[in-house]
């Protein structure tokens, strides 16, 4: 029906290996982009920006980052929160140190700094893997949070240890600080998300991505066929941390505007992003978006339905929300361990064969 392949012929390798080989998929993608850039900025308000779109977009970047490391390269990481903190603090130091440089450059540089830190903490991955690596990255999480709390230089010696984003603009439009318009917040995050997803998609379907996947599937076999594990693992750590750093920088500067490291980048954040990629689907860019949407939107939706719609007590709704989200995570792991992306893939397969299943 919708996913009909009849008449959709590919006559070259280039056509066949494009990101969206099915015409309908491709048009849907263009339609989503058109709505995201052409419609939403004009109808968005403060609530939708702050509660829904901006966190969704930023977590999507973080999920893409973690997905590259864990989903594509098979290196389990629990250090996402710590790496986001690196991005945030790097961005803060750059913003306050070089006020005349554009915030876009600062965000990208923060990604670069996080990449360097990520490589440093990725070094143990050459000797250990699986759960042991998870513990090593967990150490990164606790160490980085401790560091940013302990050393006053990182928060410019402020009395409270909080960092606050000063007002910065892109092309004359204010994008950080309290006077930011909802659409400006949304647009800067959207631009970064699209760029990150585009880079990530192209990296993962190229030679680099194949090396990561070879390491993920069986590292010894990969080494035998000529993949350098050092290069593959460290590049995965670098690229992954780069995206996570960008997410952290945007999280601090555009979304929250003021951050306290222990609260905003604690271990919970690492778990949250990990849940996103597990629910969304390991090794899938679409899965990163689906997982981020699931984890960001579901609690807000439940809250609005239970408290706003049904008028329940706030604590009852909050507890119920924990139970529902937790229950759904368990359900997903049992019913569809490959996540929302796999569900979507299956749906597509079914639709392509419809109405004549084998």
């Amino acid at each position, binding site marked *: 029906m919708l996913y009909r392949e009849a008449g959709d012929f590919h006559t070259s390798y280039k056509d066949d290996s494009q990101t969206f080989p099915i015409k309908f998929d491709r048009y849907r993608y263009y339609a989503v982009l058109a709505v995201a850039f052409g419609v939403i900025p004009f109808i968005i308000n403060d609530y939708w920006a702050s*509660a829904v779109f901006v966190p969704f977009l930023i977590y999507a970047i973080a999920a893409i980052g973690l997905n590259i490391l864990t989903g594509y390269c098979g290196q389990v990481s629990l250090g996402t929160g710590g790496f986001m903190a690196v991005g945030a603090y790097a961005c803060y130091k750059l913003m306050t140190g070089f006020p005349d440089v554009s915030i876009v450059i600062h965000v990208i540089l923060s990604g670069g700094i996080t990449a360097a830190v990520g490589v440093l903490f990725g070094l143990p991955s050459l000797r250990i893997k699986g759960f042991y690596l998870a513990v090593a990255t967990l150490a990164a999480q606790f160490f980085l949070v401790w560091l940013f709390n302990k050393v006053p230089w990182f928060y410019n010696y402020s009395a409270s240890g909080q960092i606050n984003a000063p007002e910065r603009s892109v092309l004359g439009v204010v994008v950080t600080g309290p006077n930011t318009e909802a659409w400006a917040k949304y647009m800067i995050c959207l631009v970064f998300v699209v760029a990150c997803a585009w880079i990530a998609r192209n990296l993962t379907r190229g030679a680099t991505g194949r090396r990561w996947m070879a390491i993920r599937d069986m590292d010894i076999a990969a080494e035998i066929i000529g993949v350098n594990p050092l290069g593959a693992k460290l590049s995965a750590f670098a690229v992954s941390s780069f995206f996570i750093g960008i997410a952290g920088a945007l999280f601090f500067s555009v979304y*929250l505007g003021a951050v306290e490291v222990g609260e905003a980048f604690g271990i919970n954040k690492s778990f949250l992003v990990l849940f996103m990629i597990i629910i969304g689907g390991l090794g899938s860019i679409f899965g990163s978006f689906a997982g981020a949407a699931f984890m960001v939107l579901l609690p807000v939706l439940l809250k609005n339905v239970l408290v706003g719609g049904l008028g329940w007590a706030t604590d009852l709704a909050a507890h119920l929300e924990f139970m529902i989200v937790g229950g759904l995570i368990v359900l997903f792991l049992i019913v569809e361990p490959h996540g929302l992306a796999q569900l979507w893939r299956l749906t597509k397969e079914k639709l392509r064969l419809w109405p004549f299943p084998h």
Partner: protein
Amino acid sequence: MKLKLATMALTGLMAAAPAMADLVFPSLSYRTGPYAAGGIPFADGYADYFTLLNERDGGIGGVMTNVIECETGYNTEKGVECYEATKGEGSLVYQPLSTGITYQLIPKVTADGIPLHTMGYGRTSAANGKVFSHVFNYPANYWDGASIAVNHLLDINGGDLSGKKIALVYHNSAYGKEPIRTLEELSAKHGYELTTIAVDHPGQEQKSQWLQIRRERPDYVLMWGWGVMNQVAIQEAANIRFPMENFIGVWWSGSENDVLPAGDGANGYKSLALHGTGSDYPIYADIQKYVVDAGKAAGAGDQIGSVLYSRGLYAAMLAAEAAKKAQEIHGTGDITPAMMRDGMEALEITAATLEGNGMPGFGPEFAVSCDNHGGPGLGMVQQWDATAKKWNIITDMIQSDKDVINALVVEDSEAFAAENNIEMRCN
């Protein structure tokens, strides 16, 4: 007069959109999470006071009040979501009861023109109204708290603290770090030795910190804790047999939840008090009559009379008084957030106001002004009696060392103003 206003309000109600008719006081509460033990009684007290006003007086100045609750779980991201969700409902004043959320909201409320009242917490230098136009933290702030604690120690040591050792056990967050600057300045002034000991969120694990205290044997321990951290600290202090009367918490470390788990071990523990404790005030009779007996008590209704419930009442009372003031200034019952801000800036709490609200002598008398949003900086000390299971106020109002604090407030707020290109007001 009331009837006339009520009639006017009723006509207004019929004419205008129904959503705008109430005075909206949002409550960014937290009834879940590691700090719920502190969040629940405060939220109950806050909601019950407005219920009382509605039931007994027909609202404020004839306009009914409406408390919208939004659960934050003490989480800043959820706090931001709650703020954005409620600010469009005509919310008059935000009281988030969280330093983290306060820091998020300070720039946002200033941009949106909605006042923020952080009673006894939040950003201390917001006391400088010249810089922070929409943020209020009367009647006292953390730096006052630190100074009040030191002044109390001076009192019991005959005015001399030189050579004494004081340890500060603090929540390792913006909240806990606030008093350090002041304690350092005061240490230079009074000659005591200060050790700072951090406890990480949420504070269940404090063995090593108390081991350090046992080793260093400070004369006094001050504590800036909240939630589960308080109970653990008091239990640990009892375990190492630290003399409880030398252990003083800030006003957020002095509720029943904090001392009851330690049983008799907590006997003699002191904490600062922002306001009176106990349920011997006339307002509690009214709450029983109009709120509890009417079946309209917030939450489970089991917190009435506790320290933090009283604090919720106090916070709500100050908000309601400011709303009254705003109605008086602008001559209208349906006030906007901008009018509410004017009301808060012109707020005057006298003994008669407190008495009229059924809370005689409950808090200090004070007046807010354009350049002073921080109030007088008065506080008391209360002590826990484990046998009677009761907090007793043991001192009069203690004045904080304003010479030291004002200089720090001006320094910090002017740095903030320079960073954010804020023009000074009140000139």
